[in-house]
């Protein structure tokens, strides 16, 4: 060995291995939720959508109360008023204050959409999970039922249901959910089936984990992502369906207000009072755009593998 190297070696001292230090976690680990939230925060469009949605929800709750009028009082001396200091968004054909009506309508539409999505979620997740977890013959029968249901154009069935039931908030919700849960059930089943055959579940089984624990600790946390994403996309489509039904005269009726009712009324007087159609249209478009973009953002954040 050359002399120089020997001298150099003298400069180094062997370090003592400290197992505790090696294993030390310097920072608290992130939960899946925190991790997703970090990714979502980087998505500017999604955050802007989230802010818009929060503002809309707040306005939908307090809006009807902060104007000068309520949403149902008629005033025949002030019909078809242009937007002014007294009536911020003008008045309709019965002199009802449009500002109050729009925010009241937004809150009704949002409520219908969110509740319908929640109902879809509960039914769909239970159906899908039961089908996937039980497997075998039960799964087979449940899947055949779904196959038939997906062959039915759902909007037609919703229209028929709306015809026989008394129009109202609950009716619309129920009618939408009767056909709406199928999609969620399919997604959840497919996802759980995929998870069931993955190695980490096999590993858990090998270690003797009970079925309940596997479902609770492995399957459910890994499925929440697609459930949230799908719900985010169900809400705008429910908002659309409600507006659609009201537009063809099957949804809520005046003096109740929903975005669909307002658009329908606005369309009737489009010729002279374009603002009556314009404002509710802007609100509904803003809501749907915000939900769709936030849904996209959430998909990227919750499941980075799917990012495009």
């Amino acid at each position, binding site marked *: 060995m050359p002399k120089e190297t020997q001298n150099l070696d003298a400069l180094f001292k062997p370090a003592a291995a400290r197992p505790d230090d090696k294993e030390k976690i310097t920072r608290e680990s992130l939960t899946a939720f925190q991790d997703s939230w970090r990714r979502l925060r980087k998505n500017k469009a999604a955050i802007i959508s989230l802010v818009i949605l929060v503002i809309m929800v707040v306005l939908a709750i307090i809006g009807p109360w902060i104007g000068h009028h309520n949403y149902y009082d008629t005033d025949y001396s002030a019909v078809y008023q242009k937007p002014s200091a007294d009536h911020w968004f003008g008045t309709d054909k019965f002199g009802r204050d449009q500002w109050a009506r729009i925010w009241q309508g937004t809150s009704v539409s949002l409520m219908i959409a969110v509740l319908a999505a929640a109902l879809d979620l509960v039914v769909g997740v239970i159906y899908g999970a039961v089908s996937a977890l039980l497997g075998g013959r039960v799964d087979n029968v449940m899947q055949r039922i779904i196959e*038939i249901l997906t062959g*039915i154009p759902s909007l037609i069935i919703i229209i028929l249901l709306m015809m026989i039931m008394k129009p109202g908030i609950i009716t619309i919700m129920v009618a939408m959910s009767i056909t709406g849960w199928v999609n969620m059930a399919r997604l959840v089943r497919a996802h759980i089936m995929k998870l069931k055959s993955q190695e980490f579940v096999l590993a858990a089984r090998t270690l003797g984990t009970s079925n309940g624990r596997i479902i609770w600790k492995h399957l459910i946390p890994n499925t929440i992502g697609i459930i949230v994403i799908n719900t985010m996309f169900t809400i705008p489509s429910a908002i659309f369906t409600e507006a659609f039904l009201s537009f063809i005269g099957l949804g809520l009726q005046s003096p109740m207000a929903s975005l669909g009712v307002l658009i329908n009324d606005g369309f009737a007087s489009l010729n002279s009072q374009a603002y009556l159609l314009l404002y509710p249209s802007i609100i509904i478009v803003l809501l749907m755009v915000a939900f769709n973009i936030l849904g996209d953002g959430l998909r990227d954040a919750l499941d980075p593998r799917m990012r495009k």
Partner: protein
Amino acid sequence: MKRYIGVRLIYLVLTLFIITTATFFLMKGLPGTPFDEEKLQQLPTEQRQKIYASYGLDKPVVTQYVNYLGNIVKGDLGTSFFYTGQKVTDIISGRIGPSALIGLQAVLLGLAIGLILGIIAAYRHNTGWDYATMIIAVLGVSVPNFVLAALMQYYMGLKWGWFPVAFWESYSSSILPSVALSVGVVALIARFVRTEMLEVLEQEYITTAKAKGLGFIRIMFQHVIRNSLISVITVLGPIVVNLLTGSLVIENIFGIPGIGSLFVDSIKMNDYSTIMGITIFYSAFYVLVMLVVDLLYGLVDPRIRFASGKE
């Protein structure tokens, strides 16, 4: 393959049977009748019975149901309550023309624009082109088609006078409704093609093609676009749904004598037999399209054929 088609056909018949049954009993559960109740009460009982008998309403519900099913098999959807004495099948076939024309134009227009947008967006991924396309796609699914149609009618028809405002008079009457209907199709296709193409661009066979020294045009058309377009067939299902629901409102807005406006009108008139007829017609159309989509997809993409053959 043969067995697969057979199974699918059984499902098709089963689905249609369930829809027919559900529709029939839903209609029976409807409050009110299509007749003018007040005037009907003034008629002597004998005449009232005659009216009921002429529509087969005097028999028990189960008999009516069996008769209805039997007639459907023979291709008879019953007689309209509102358009007195007219067969529902005749009314529907008389209204197909405008609906088919508008629907077809909307699909072709939507397909053309959607494809171009999707391809440009994927090729210029993460540039202004891409973002612009994505904004169009999000707006396309977010703006309700009836809002868009109403605004188009107001501005392009009424204010600026570019197109006829409403009614079915000349070919130009079909332009605004077709465009309004096509926006949803554009959004669906652009988004789908973009995603598909981004995936194909990452495939190894594209790298191989580049390594072989193939020209840009050759790679794009022979490898990328061709492979991306295969699965566009699968969006046909959502597109058909989009068109069916769109036609209900858009035909109404523009006063077009198509099936969509007929459906909405008959809902308002309580015209049961027409409502049932159109429901069955729509469902049959939808179910058939879905079957054709699945079969076509299996034909174009051999990987799918094997997968479905196993099931």
